[in-house]
C-alpha cells in the first residue's frame, strides 16, 4: 500500500501533527512487558515479513515530507546541528550510499539510484529531487555528502569512529534530539556520551552493549527501541532550546495531558559502514499522543503499569518527574487489571472508533 505523505504538519509553534489510524497501529510501542528497566535489548535489524516500522532498513512513513522540512528549518536556524569531523570523510560517503541503496531497494516507487562507475543519479520523488553527481566528489553535491543524505531521511544519525577499543562520536546530525547536544558531545567515547544515563552503568549495560556494537558486521545491522516523553509533537527537544520547550512540562494538567503528552520512541539502528569501518547510528523518532496510544487497549493497560512502577531515577532522567503523578492518574482509567500478552504487538487490526 502506497504511503500518503502528510503535507501540512509542523513540529514547533502551532504543532499541526497527527497520526492516521494506520500510523497508530504501526507505532513501535517500546514496552515488551508491564515493567521497564534498562537492558541490552539489541537484536538483528532484519526486515520483518509483515508491514510496519521494521519492514525497511530506514522506515519511511506518512510524516516523511514534513519531517524533512522540519530538518531543513532546524539546519537553517542552527547549521551546527549537523557536523562531521574531517577524518570521517569516507564515512560520509558510506552513509550516503547506504541510505540511497536502502531507500531505493525498500521503496522503488519513491526512490531510484542509478550508478555507472562513479557517476550516480539519485531520484527522490516525495521531495522532488533529481540529482546527478560523482561519488566521492563533494563538489558535485549541494551539501556535504552526509548532510545531503540526512536532509532526505527521517530521524537523527551519528557517526562512530571505532578505535582504541571504543567508539567515538565523530559526527552526526541532531535536529530531533531527546535532550542531548551533538555540538557538546562530539568527540566523546561511547561511555562518556552515555555518562548521564542512570542505573545502566552499574548494571554493566553499556560495557556489554559496546562489545556488541564493535562486533557489528557489514550487512548485519542491529536495532533497539528506546523511549522518553515529550510535551507537544516537538522533534527539537535539544538542550540548546530547552528554554523554549521546558516550560511546556509545567503546563500539563489532567485535562490536557491526553492530547498534549506524547510518547517519544526512538528506533535506534546500527550499521557497519564498509569503506570507513565506522558505525552509523540511526535514531529515528516516532511520536504518538497518549490519546492515540490508549485507543489500543493493551497499550493503555501496559502504559499505566510501566509508568506507575517506573524507577524514580529513570523518571528523573527522562524528565517525567514534574508531571508523573498526573500521568499515572490519567492512565489509570485505561487499566482494567486484565493481563497483557507478551511483546509489543497491538493485538488488534483496526482501532476502535
Amino acid at each position, binding site marked *: 500500500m502506497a504511503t500518503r505523505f502528510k503535507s501540512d504538519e509542523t513540529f514547533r509553534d502551532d504543532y499541526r501533527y497527527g497520526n492516521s489510524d494506520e500510523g497508530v497501529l504501526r507505532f513501535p510501542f517500546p514496552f515488551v512487558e508491564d515493567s521497564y528497566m534498562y*537492558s*541490552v*535489548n*539489541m*537484536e*538483528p*535489524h*532484519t*526486515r520483518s515479513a509483515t508491514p510496519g516500522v521494521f519492514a525497511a*532498513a530506514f522506515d519511511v512513513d506518512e510524516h516523511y515530507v514534513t519531517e524533512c522540512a522540519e530538518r531543513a528549518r532546524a539546519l537553517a536556524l542552527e547549521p551546527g546541528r549537523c557536523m562531521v569531523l574531517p*577524518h*570521517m570523510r*569516507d564515512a560520509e560517503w*558510506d552513509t550516503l*550510499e547506504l541510505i540511497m*541503496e*536502502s531507500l531505493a*531497494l525498500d521503496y522503488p516507487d519513491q526512490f531510484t539510484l542509478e*550508478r555507472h*562507475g562513479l557517476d550516480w543519479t539519485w531520484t527522490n520523488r516525495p521531495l522532488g529531487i533529481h540529482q546527478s553527481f560523482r561519488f566521492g566528489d563533494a563538489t558535485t553535491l549541494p551539501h556535504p555528502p552526509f548532510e545531503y543524505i540526512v536532509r532526505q531521511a527521517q530521524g537523527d544519525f551519528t557517526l562512530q*569512529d*571505532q*578505535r*582504541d*577499543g571504543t567508539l567515538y562520536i*565523530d559526527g552526526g546530525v541532531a535536529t530531533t534530539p531527546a535532550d542531548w547536544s551533538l555540538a557538546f558531545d562530539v568527540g566523546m567515547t561511547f561511555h562518556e556520551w552515555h555518562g548521564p544515563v542512570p542505573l545502566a552503568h552499574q548494571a554493566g549495560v553499556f*560495557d*556489554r*552493549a559496546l*562489545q*556488541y556494537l564493535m*562486533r*557489528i*558486521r*557489514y*550487512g*548485519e*545491522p*542491529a536495532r533497539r527501541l528506546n523511549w522518553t516523553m515529550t510535551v507537544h509533537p516537538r522533534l527539537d527537544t535539544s538542550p540548546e532550546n530547552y528554554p523554549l520547550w521546558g516550560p511546556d512540562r509545567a503546563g500539563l494538567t489532567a485535562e490536557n495531558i491526553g492530547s498534549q503528552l506524547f510518547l517519544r520512541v526512538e528506533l535506534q539502528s546500527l*550499521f557497519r559502514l*564498509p*569503506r*570507513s*569501518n565506522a558505525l552509523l547510528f540511526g535514531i529515528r523518532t516516532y511520536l504518538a499522543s497518549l490519546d492515540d496510544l490508549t485507543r489500543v487497549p493493551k497499550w493503555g493497560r501496559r502504559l499505566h503499569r510501566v509508568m506507575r512502577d517506573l524507577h524514580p531515577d529513570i523518571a528523573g532522567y527522562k524528565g517525567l518527574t514534574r508531571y508523573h503523578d498526573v500521568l499515572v492518574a490519567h492512565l489509570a482509567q485505561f487499566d482494567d487489571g486484565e493481563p497483557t500478552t507478551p511483546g509489543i504487538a497491538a493485538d488488534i487490526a483496526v482501532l476502535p472508533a
Partner: protein
Amino acid sequence: MTNARTLHLKVARADGIAPTLRRVHLVAADGARLPPAAPGAHITLTLPAPAGGRPLHNSYTLVSADPEAGYEVIVRLSERSRGGSRHVHESLAPGDGIEATAPHNLFALHSQAKKHLLIGGGIGVTPMIAFVTHLREQGASFELHQIAAPAEVGVFEALLAPRAGERIHIHAGRDAFGLTALLAAQPLGTHVYACGPAGLMDGVEAAAAALGWPETHVHREDFGAAGGEPFVLRLAASGIEIAVAGDQTMLEAIEAAGVDTPSLCRGGACGVCMLPVSEGTPEHRDHYLSEAERGAGCLVMPCVSRSRSATLVLDI
C-alpha cells in the same frame, strides 16, 4: 540490511605471480555490485576439501576491493595446506564459482595516526598493498618495510610498484632489517601495523612494548575467532543429540534441530539465550556472564560460545 552474509562470487582471472603466489580476481557471479571494503578487510572463502571432507573456510585479506571491478586476493601455497591453498593454486580457474563472506575489517587503519608504519613479512604484503593505495590517495604519512625471501625480492618490488621514494623498503630476509632501531626512531603519534608470520608480528609487538609504545598504537592482522572445532550437544530433557559444525554456532545448531529457544542479540551481549549446562566444559566467548559465572561452568550463551569438551550437555 541486505543480509550480505554470503557472497556468490566467480573467478574473473587467476595469475601466478611467483611459484608459490597466485593472484585471484573475484567478481559477483551475477555481475552485480559487491560491497565496498576498507583497507585491511578480509573475506573468508569457502573452498572444497579434498576427498569429500567438509569444506574449508580460509580468510584472505583484500589487496583491492571495488564494488564494480571486484576483489583481489593473493594466495600463497601453504606447505602444510589442508587443501585450501592447494585448491586455489592447482584447481581454481576463471569462471569457477566460489562463496565468500562479506568483507570484515579487524585490521583497520587508525584515524588519528600522525604516521603509519607498515611492516609486512612475505604474504603479509597483502593488506600493505591496500594500505599503501589508500594512504597515497589520502596524502597521509607512511613508511612500508616489506620483508621478502631473497629469491622473491623482485616479485615484491613488482607488487609494490610504483615505489614512492624513501617510503617503501624491501628487505631480503628478516636479518636485513633493524626492527628496534626503526621503532625507536618513530615520531610521537605513529601507529605500527604488522602482518606476516606470527614470529614477525610477535617480534613487532615485543619490540614496540619494550620501547614504551602503548598497545593502542600497535596493530596486527586479525581474522577473528569465528567458528572452531565441531562438538556434540546433548539436550538432557529430550535426549536429543545435535552435531555442532565448526562453522556453525550452537544456537544455529539447536534451531536447525527444530528446538525452539529464545534469543535476541545473537552476539553474546543481551543474555536472552542463556542456557544451563549440566556436563562438559563451555568455551565462553560472550560479554554477558561474570567471571564467577564462567568459572562455575553452569551457564552458556549458545549464540557465540562453544565447547572445550567433545560433548556438552544442556539441561533443557
